[in-house]
């Protein structure tokens, strides 16, 4: 009897140990941060505007970019690196250190200065005057500044560059764009859709407020059109980037046009099993921020945020690493119905 009991106990312990090992390793990164484990796969996404504007706009940037790369490298060594990183304002070769040092296997660069068809002239086009006085297309002096880094395979990446009417002031000099890629997340039956962009800035664009607002709304319209044409309703979608939605009228318009949930709002809602990092204030992730993440479940798979933090807050030689901080969200992914009656939005919902 004792023998039988020991045998059964041993077998049970082996199986339990195996499953425990599996779960503990699977959510090793999130457990440290106090995450509640969720069924299915998980995914962490960091969006970070690294402010690597060309010199002399941003001087002595290289040491800070090196430090950003070093932090990502250290996190990888610790096994806590975000699965996906989307960078904005990654202009110039000096940003390559982040690609080279952080260890991400899959990289998608946003369009460069010459890529994409510039469709319309800028907002300051005047009909009077000589026909050849100004270029018929918007002048671009910089690329999009967008980079996606991923541990998981990215397939079928697509981009669309904003036209000349969808920018205001100095922002028109960069070839701003939307990028979308399909991420093959382990444990998911079909790839997750990831979209990133960098929308028109506000005061730093040096254009009248009404023109800045119009440009931002046109970019939002373009993103909505991009999503309606290219995103599928079956797979989950994450939209992460610097959307410059700090102004209420910008945020409101964006929310009305883009069919996705605000990860911060969802996380902070009562009853949802989501953790905010201890040193991250609610305002930092909600509305007092240009960086945002939005998500939408698919018809076959659900997604929800389980942890949010603002990171990369340290200073180097008395200066912040960037004029933005990192915005990292961990998502739980699961089959439809696995989350119960939590707030999710499907692509088919309005």
């Amino acid at each position: 009897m004792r023998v039988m009991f020991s045998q059964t106990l041993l077998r049970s312990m082996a199986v339990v140990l195996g499953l425990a090992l599996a779960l503990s390793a699977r959510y090793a990164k999130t457990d440290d941060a106090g995450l509640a484990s969720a069924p299915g796969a998980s995914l962490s996404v960091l969006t970070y505007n690294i402010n690597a504007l060309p010199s002399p706009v941003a001087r002595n940037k290289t040491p800070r970019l090196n430090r950003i790369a070093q932090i990502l490298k250290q996190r990888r060594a610790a096994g806590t690196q975000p699965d996906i990183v989307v960078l904005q304002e990654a202009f110039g070769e000096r940003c390559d250190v982040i690609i080279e040092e952080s260890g991400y296997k899959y990289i998608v660069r946003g369009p460069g200065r010459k890529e994409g068809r510039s469709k319309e002239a800028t907002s300051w086009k005047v009909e009077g005057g000589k026909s050849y006085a100004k270029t018929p297309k918007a002048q671009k002096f910089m690329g999009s500044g967008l980079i996606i880094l991923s541990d998981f395979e990215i397939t079928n990446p697509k981009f669309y560059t904003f036209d000349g009417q969808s920018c205001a002031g100095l922002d028109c000099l960069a070839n701003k764009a939307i990028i979308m890629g399909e991420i093959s997340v382990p444990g998911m039956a079909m790839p997750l859709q990831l979209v990133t962009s960098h929308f028109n800035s506000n005061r730093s664009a040096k254009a009248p407020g009404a023109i800045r607002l119009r440009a931002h709304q046109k970019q939002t319209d373009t993103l909505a059109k991009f999503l309606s044409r290219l995103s599928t309703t079956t797979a989950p979608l994450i939209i992460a980037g610097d959307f410059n939605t700090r102004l209420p009228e910008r945020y409101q318009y964006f929310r009305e046009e883009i069919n996705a949930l605000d990860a911060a709002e969802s996380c902070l809602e009562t009853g949802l099993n989501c953790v905010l990092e201890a040193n991250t204030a609610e305002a930092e992730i909600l509305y007092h921020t240009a960086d945002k993440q939005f998500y939408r479940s698919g018809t076959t798979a659900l997604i929800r945020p389980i942890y949010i933090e603002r990171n990369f807050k340290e200073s180097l030689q008395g200066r912040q690493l960037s004029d933005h901080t990192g915005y990292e969200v961990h998502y739980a992914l699961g089959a439809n119905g696995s989350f119960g009656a939590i707030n999710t939005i499907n692509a088919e919902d309005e």
Partner: protein
Amino acid sequence: MRQGLRPLGIGRVMAFALAALWALPGQAYDVRTKTTGPPVYIKAVEVKLDDDKHPWHGRYGAGLVTAPNFPGSDNYDEDLDLDLKLVWKNKVFFENGTLGVIAFNRRLFRAGFLLRADQGRQVDDLPEALKGLGKVSARVDSGIFAGFSLYKTYITAELLTDISDVTNGQTFDLEIGYTMELSRQTRMVPYFRTKWGSRHHNSAFFDVDAVQAAASGLRQFHAKSGIYENAIGVVVENDLGKDWHFNASVNLARLSDGAKDSPITQSTHGDPNQITLRAKLVKTF
């Protein structure tokens, strides 16, 4: 006792191994745990959201213009100002009597060829006392242009020569302007423009030869080559809708050198200050 300690069974061992494999995402899903190995760059492909634009675009419109009756005149007339611009693929354009081909088009520079009609000086536009000066026939100029633009600033230059054997002169026109966005609908372009004319060109409009002197009572005068006009101006454009615009402009020019010193300009019917006002409604397509 020994019998009781038999192996767990292949099925359970495999289940354990699979679970352990799933537990190590770095190995199971090819996620790097170290920062080694070259990254795989995946090229993004551009997508199209809009239909291709028609190769033709342009504008048409009408309004009023107030301008000196002839170069150096202090008499002004109001006229209907018809506006037509046609552009094909941003390479060939026709704009209010000017036909152009943009042969070189880069981010900062554009250059090409121009063919321009000029109505000259009509006798009907001259006051009675100066009708003896006679007309300067309409002519066709051809030449080259270059345009430079950086953000909201532009510079244009045109070098033209008369190919219709009317003046046999050459002109050079240089303009610099800056676009100011006043509001969501309104833009303003202040500019400075200077014009140079060869001796033949300036003579055609500002000379008074013996015959003309006898007929008009003005003293004889021969204009030399040089800058004959400097101007400042402003163009204001207001969007009335997606395709409709109100366009107004003021050009304040001052004749210089031979053009200013000409007896035509110095006469009681002349003025070195030349003002042109335009206001029109245009529709773009």
